[in-house]
């Protein structure tokens, strides 16, 4: 597909845009955006604000009523609780390991998917499968594979004599967290791979030709040409997956329910426990906004990266 040539007008700073009817596009834009605004904020705005409001009170039941006002008390309490920081640490570890693994494996897989060979369409179809699998099924499937008494992983490793006997994989906190990482990476790497594939396809062949003419080997070409051009996409994947990882809940719910010994209790799961199990809705609301602030931080980075990306092109 051809690249778009930005119109002349889009390069002008706003103040220099011709004024006049044709260029007061605000109202048109508003009409076009109105349905989207209604659909999104009609549903989301009131609960969003309501939760923010709730986070300022010490709410300990789901019923409406008057609760003591604590201002930023819930937020401060979160920062003081060891459980909160432990959950943050786990989330950070989960986020870091899943995104790094997904990017690295995604690049390798993307390169493979981009290479020319017969049956490439088959590989592309296969690669999509884990990503299409519902998260709930993914979690249940890995639980079965990791079963300490009958699981396939135990069977495989003992039959290959890699481990002497069946062992527990979800029974200790550290191991369980890593297993959840693996389950997530298995499911989401295909997405990263497709992002990379899309980016690879926009790299003009002339660059590769030129490198070959200059005598560069495959590896050299990859590191000096491909990788730098992939950088914007990699950054995008990193930020997107980070945002998602901070919210991770479903797979924890199905695979480990936060255990063992809270070993897989990520910040989103911690929020759920505080809100529903302990009915501390004020505190839960504050936690949710803390998560949101962290994600906002990454979203801003993303927007900056995009802007920079456009200029480079």
């Amino acid at each position, binding site marked *: 597909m051809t690249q778009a040539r930005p119109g002349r007008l889009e390069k002008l700073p706003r103040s220099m845009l011709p004024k006049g009817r044709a260029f007061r596009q605000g109202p048109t834009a508003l009409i076009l955006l109105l349905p989207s605004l209604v659909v999104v904020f009609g549903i989301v705005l009131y609960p969003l604000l309501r939760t923010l409001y709730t986070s300022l009170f010490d709410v300990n039941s789901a019923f409406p009523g008057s609760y003591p006002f604590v201002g930023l008390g819930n937020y401060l309490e979160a920062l003081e609780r060891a459980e909160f920081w432990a959950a943050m640490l786990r989330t950070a570890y989960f986020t870091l390991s899943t995104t790094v693994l997904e990017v690295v494996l995604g690049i390798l897989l993307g390169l493979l998917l981009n290479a020319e060979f017969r049956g490439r369409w088959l590989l592309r179809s296969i690669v*999509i499968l884990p990503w299409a699998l*519902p998260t709930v099924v993914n979690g249940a*499937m890995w639980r079965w594979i990791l079963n300490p008494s009958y699981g396939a992983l135990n069977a495989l490793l003992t039959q290959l004599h890699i481990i002497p006997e069946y062992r527990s994989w979800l029974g200790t906190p550290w191991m369980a967290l890593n297993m959840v990482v693996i389950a997530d990476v298995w499911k989401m790497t295909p997405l990263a791979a497709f*992002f990379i594939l899309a980016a690879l396809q926009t790299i003009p062949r002339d660059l590769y*030709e030129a490198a070959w003419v200059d005598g560069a080997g495959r590896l050299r070409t990859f590191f000096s040409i491909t990788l730098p051009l992939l950088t914007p996409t990699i950054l995008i994947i990193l930020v997107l997956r980070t945002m998602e990882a901070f919210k991770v809940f479903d797979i924890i719910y199905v695979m480990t329910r936060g255990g063992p010994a809270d070993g897989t209790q990520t910040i989103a799961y911690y929020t759920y426990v505080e809100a529903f199990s302990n009915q501390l809705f004020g505190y839960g609301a504050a936690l949710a906004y803390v998560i949101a602030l962290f994600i906002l931080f990454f979203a801003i980075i993303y927007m900056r990266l995009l802007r920079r990306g456009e200029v480079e092109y």
Partner: protein
Amino acid sequence: MRTSLAFKVFIYVAAVFASVVILAPFAWLIISSVAAPADLLSKPLRWIPAHASLSRYADIFFGADSETVVTFRAAMVNSTIVAASSVLISLGVGIFGAYAFARLQFRFQRGILLLFLSTYMLPPIAILISLYLMMVQLHLLDTKLGLILVYCSFITPFVLWIMSGYFRSIPRDLEDAARIDGCSRIGALFRVVLPLARPGLLATALFGFLLAWDEFLYALIFTSSLNSKTIPVAIAEFTGRHAVDFGMMTTGGVLASLPPLVIAFVFQRYIVGGLASGAVKG
């Protein structure tokens, strides 16, 4: 170019290796669903079951435990209706907004897009109770419509983001030509831009469908009866009930995966195109 034999072999080996790693867990899921209980619990594990049968599938479809049949069927129908409707509505609504972001200049353009994307920042747990109360007051609890509205609220920003990038990548000249010929902007949108944007639309539809099909927490809390229970909730309950009946659990898992897998398989060639213009180039 330099397609030496060694390299070609390497590629094929890598492809096979990747396929195995990717397919193995899922293959095991399928095998488990047809294996006899004795095979599942055998030590050392028999990879090829000695007695394979489709009896569990038969049970689910025709079986004595009719509650499972009814639940599964209802959940499949609900998930399909909810996911399809959410995607259609979100696309229908989002296309116009995406066009605005792509082709028009207006104040706070970036800010408004960021505003939409910011709705992804709040974890669902945050607005759950308030949203639940809203649903109650609007009598939307345990209804498909309620779920559809909620899902549209998070699929639409996605449509806006991907499609605006996609529209931007379509050359203006074609549109300008149509408008010179007398088409209105909207007419140009429908007659020129959208047909060209088909790959992006399909990719977005696919993404949106998978997002909706996969959604768990809202479905868990907002649904209770077969009126609106979706597949993820049904599966979570099913796997809870058959926590130790691994055969049944895996059977349910396979069935629940079929629709999204089939759809992803059919539309996968549009994904790359959609991602290329939409997400990668912003």
